[in-house]
């Protein structure tokens, strides 16, 4: 009841006088949130003295308004007195409090006595330790979930291979259309631009020592081996991986996945497998298209900026690039697709009840799949180097 009445100067809110066996306090005015700041200071000042006093009497007769904040502060004062009560010789009394206010006080006291009891178990050290522990457990759980999903997909694939009739072809084709066909324009544009930029930078810097022809080698090898597949994989992770997570996540939120399970269908087989198959088929195609677009962009820049005719560019490219370079790039594509698909589905299944968790998991899905794609690329680089490809 924050009534804005009873404006008493702050000092008058709580005064105390020492009597022979303790402290007598007199409260007045409005014990509400509007006075809480001043009141808290007075209460804390008085608590020091009260902790040593034997008897405490608080006269609340002149209190005109009293709310939860006032009740909490009064309770704090009483608690300070009670804390020092080791010998059981102490007594405290609140007199003159209006009946409707005393109901509130007793309710607050009841609530607070429970609070202090349980709060003791929440130490700061314990909290931070628990935080670190849960972070470590989370990482381990993520890794496990990823491996489990690989296993589940492998198992589902085996079952589908045994019973080819149960393959969800329509679904796979639908997803191939979305992640493959519909992605072609943006993938082509981006890779074209990147190819052009690499060529321009190559020509600009190689020209200083008269080696601008080698810009073609740079473009060819870099695009076919690394940039083409990596760029496309990152684009697909951002474009389709996030879509997978959001779709599966919202299905999880609305209990659609549970509904599937109760109908005796395996969500991995029905939802995950077609998506992953679409991605594994789509990404190599996109990589191929992207690589060609990048080479095309490089050639265009070489012609317009470097003054190299298209015929020379193609001839030079033929010398610089072997099928091996192309193979190295293309071999990586399906593995990266698998990684993106699995991460996206794992994150999608992790979505909990709230819309916020859907957003969190979608972000996590993109970040993780890009990280893992780059990690995978590094591992492949080491692998190909060691087998001399």
């Amino acid at each position: 009841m924050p009534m804005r009445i009873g404006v008493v100067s702050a000092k008058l809110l709580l005064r105390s006088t020492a009597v022979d066996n303790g402290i007598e306090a007199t409260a007045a005015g409005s014990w509400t949130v509007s006075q809480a700041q001043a009141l808290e200071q007075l209460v804390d000042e008085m608590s020091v003295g009260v902790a040593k006093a034997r008897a405490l009497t608080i006269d609340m007769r002149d209190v005109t308004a009293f709310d939860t904040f006032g009740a909490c502060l009064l309770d704090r004062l009483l608690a300070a007195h009670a804390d020092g009560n080791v010998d059981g010789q102490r007594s405290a009394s609140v007199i003159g409090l209006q009946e409707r206010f005393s109901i509130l006080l007793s309710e607050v006291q009841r609530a607070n006595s429970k609070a202090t009891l349980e709060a003791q178990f929440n130490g700061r050290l314990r909290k931070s330790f628990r935080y670190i522990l849960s972070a470590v457990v989370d990482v381990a759980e993520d890794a496990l979930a990823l491996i489990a999903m690989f296993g589940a997909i492998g198992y589902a694939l085996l079952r589908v291979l045994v019973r080819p009739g149960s393959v969800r072809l329509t679904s796979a084709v639908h997803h191939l259309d979305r992640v493959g066909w519909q992605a072609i324009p943006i993938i082509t544009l981006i890779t074209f631009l990147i190819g052009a930029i690499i060529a321009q930078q190559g020509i600009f810097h190689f020209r200083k020592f008269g080696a601008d022809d080698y810009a073609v080698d740079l473009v060819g090898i870099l695009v076919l081996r690394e940039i083409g597949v990596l760029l496309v994989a990152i684009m697909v992770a951002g474009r389709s991986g996030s879509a997978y997570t959001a779709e599966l996540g919202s299905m999880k939120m609305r209990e659609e996945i549970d509904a599937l399970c109760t109908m005796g269908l395996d969500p991995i087989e029905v939802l995950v497998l077609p998506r992953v198959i679409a991605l594994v088929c789509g990404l190599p195609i996109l990589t191929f298209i992207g690589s060609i677009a990048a080479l095309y962009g490089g050639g265009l820049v070489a012609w317009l900026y470097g003054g190299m005719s298209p015929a020379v560019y193609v001839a030079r490219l033929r010398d610089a690039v072997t099928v091996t370079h192309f193979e190295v790039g293309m071999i990586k594509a399906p593995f990266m697709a698998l990684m993106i698909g699995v991460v996206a589905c794992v994150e999608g299944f992790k979505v909990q009840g709230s819309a916020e968790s859907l957003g969190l998991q979608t972000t996590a899905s993109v970040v993780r799949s890009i990280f893992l794609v780059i990690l995978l690329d590094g591992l492949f680089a080491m692998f190909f180097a060691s087998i001399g490809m």
Partner: protein
Amino acid sequence: MEDSASQVVIRVRDLIVGFDDRIVLDHLSLELRRGEVLGVVGASGGGKSVLLRTILGLLPKRAGKIEIMGMERDNTTLDQLRRLEQRWGILFQQGALFSSLTARQNIEFPMREYFHISDALRKEVAMTKLQMVGLSAGDADKFPAQLSGGMTKRVALARALALDPEIVFLDEPTSGLDPIAAGEFDALIQTLQKTLGLTVFMVTHDLDSLSTVCDRIAALADGKIAVAGPLATILACEHPWVKEYFQGKRGHKKLDPLH
């Protein structure tokens, strides 16, 4: 007469609210008196929530007057409105807890915005409110996503009470709760109403809540208040919809012992 008039905290007169060409509330008049618990019932989609949202100012009205604590909605300045908003608390149907804040932070949020008090006191009061609505200290650091339906309602109630309001609006407080939890929630509302001297405006479907908690009931039918008064008045009402609602099969079972 003069005295009883001053006891009216919300007065709605000839309120008309509609969307496009559909009139939802048609010349509706209603009073909420200080210290009472008013239950508003009505058919699903009949305009209960629209009434609540119009009083709160979330929906525009076409005509009519809404007077809250002596201030007419149309004639208040923004500043007055802000001060008015500190004097009421609202429990939304789904809780409407801020999902990025923990339970305790949710309760502290309005206090942090409006009150200049120390962090320690704010935390202390927030914990007290949390205990008052029947939650334990261990729930304080949980996020809304980790709370069950009943706990969400309790935290939302604690947040509605954060500023020690005079009026509390409850939008279907017991919906989605099992009968035992709903009964506990009713008892909680009753206790808090007595302890804090609240005036409660409750939109509900729950016949149990209506019969146990509410001092007065207002039945909304055809965009108007068909009847308002204590349960006995409502049961005696001859309006067909009200009769069906309270005397129908489901209503009969629950309210029979009161006859």
